[in-house]
């Protein structure tokens, strides 16, 4: 018993340095953001307790619900399309000359900052940019499309950029998954007369399941938090066509300095996100998908 006490002491000495930072910047914010939502927080003056006023304001705030809707659209579109990386991974999972060169090339968008990526695509999507110039020259568009300033295309363009940047990242994860599948399994399927598509559906995809869940989970989390690309290219506009919850909360907090209201929005979003992640977690876990994520 005394031995365990001594051991605990030593253990806490190891943990303590990290714990100080975690308590202040990870655990404390989770707790402290809740009361903040019930105050009319003032940076300089006295903060005032306002009860549920921030929440009732959020419920009647049209722009907030638009941002929730757009975030849900983002989560509904980007993570499922992320599965395309599986095809890419299968395609680069072959031993031919120069294949690692191509894999490295495909990974470049991943290491590049989202700001640089956004600026680059912003100019490709510009009415005078590369895409419109090309499309008009070849008679596909009759007049330029303002991808980022047209409410019909703005959100789709941002989704496209997000997907484009993530493609190489998820490809690498799936590639790691593919390479962990024993070659004999596929070979024996071919010996038994299976076609390529059959082998893909019956062997490769089922064995990739843990990786598919991991990627879906990560992709959902990053879709919920999408910020950089929206902030840099449209800042929620035109109108509120691309307003997502993270940008709306950011504007309320750091443009209007309305911390109480921004916290209430954050809390509502957090509740929605937690429900979503638990659902994915349980569903993925039951299917034997995720071991510890």
């Amino acid at each position, binding site marked *: 018993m005394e031995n*365990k006490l001594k051991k*605990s002491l*030593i*253990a*806490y000495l*190891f*943990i303590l*340095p*990290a714990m100080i*930072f*975690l308590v*202040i*910047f*990870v655990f*404390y*914010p*989770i707790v*402290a*953001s*809740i009361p*903040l939502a019930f105050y009319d927080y003032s940076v300089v003056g006295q903060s005032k307790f306002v009860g549920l006023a921030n929440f009732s304001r959020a419920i009647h705030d049209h722009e907030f619900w638009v941002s929730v809707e757009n975030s849900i659209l983002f989560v509904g579109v980007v993570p499922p399309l992320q599965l395309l990386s599986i095809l890419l991974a299968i*395609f680069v999972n072959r031993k031919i000359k120069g294949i690692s060169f*191509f894999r*490295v*090339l*495909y*990974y*470049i*968008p991943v*290491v*590049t*900052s989202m*700001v640089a990526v956004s*600026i*680059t*695509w912003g*100019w*490709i999507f510009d009415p*005078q*940019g*590369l895409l419109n110039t*090309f499309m008009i020259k070849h008679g596909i568009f009759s007049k330029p499309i303002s991808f980022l300033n047209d409410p019909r295309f703005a959100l789709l363009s941002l989704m496209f950029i997000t997907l484009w940047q993530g493609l*190489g990242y998820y490809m690498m994860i799936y590639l*790691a*998954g593919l390479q962990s599948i024993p070659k004999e399994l596929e070979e024996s399927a071919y010996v038994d007369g299976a076609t390529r598509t059959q082998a893909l559906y019956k062997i490769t995809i089922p064995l990739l399941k843990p*990786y598919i869940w991991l990627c879906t989970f990560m992709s959902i989390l990053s879709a*919920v938090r999408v910020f950089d690309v929206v902030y*840099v290219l449209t800042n929620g506009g035109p109108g509120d066509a691309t307003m997502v919850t993270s940008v709306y*909360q*950011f504007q309320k*907090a*750091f443009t209007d300095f309305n*911390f109480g209201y921004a*916290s209430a929005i*954050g809390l509502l*979003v*957090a509740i929605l996100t937690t429900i979503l992640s638990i659902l994915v*977690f349980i569903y993925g876990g039951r299917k034997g998908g995720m071991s*510890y*994520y």
Partner: protein
Amino acid sequence: METLNNKSVNYKKVKAIKKIFSLTITYLILIIIAIFLAGPFIWLVSSSFKTGQNIYTMNLIPHPFTLANYIGVINFISIPKYILNTVIITVSGIVLDVVLASLAAYPLACMDFYGKNLIFSALVSTMILPAAAGLIVNYLTISKMGLLDTLTGVIIPGAVSVFSIILLRQSYLTVPRELIDAAKIDGASEFKIWYKIMLPEVMPAISTIVIFDFIGLWNSFLWPIVVLQDPNKYPLATALKYLSGQFNYKFGYVAAGTVLSIIPVIIVFLAFQKYFINAVAGAIKG
């Protein structure tokens, strides 16, 4: 006999042609995907060498060729200063995370102590529970500490990541217990065991963390714009947004600035690409 031989030669020929054909198609597809994923950057580089008049042209080879954009952007913003800010943020962030996480993960994996399960579940739950207003509370905390508008204020909230702790714990668990037991018999202290025996064993996991932190910190954008007011303290990504806001009518400058901001990270990536690619695989296997 002869016809049979001929047939088999023909068969071989057909097979060889088929192989060349399928290989050509494969490379063609690989190149098309490469144009899709790397093309925008190539076009960006070429645009950065174009003059104002022909900046919108699709020609890949800039004609006339000019360095004016680079000279202009370097005169307007101090790129070396932004690189220095980014290096300070990235290096200190990585060092703090590696040291703190590798210390904290060790007892969580290899020691039996009071409250271990509680601490571990608290850590895991932070990965699912989003901090509703983490940004706001951390801003207020940093502000109370008097660290607003300082690089320290940018660095310390992310000093240690829960992801790193969990990844390292997983890695410590794979180290054979006999190694620890043998060292204990020799009378080594826990600290010495950690430093001399465990740390070298988990180096692959540490390199994974270094790489993930590097990409994350080098490209960090949101938190720096919250904490920093003085544009002179911006890291590259934030400075780039600032530049594009100032010069959205002068794409040449923005293109040159973007290229300059990407170059360091591309160099590091190409130099360590093997580790980058292993890092992704390593993070999953834990």
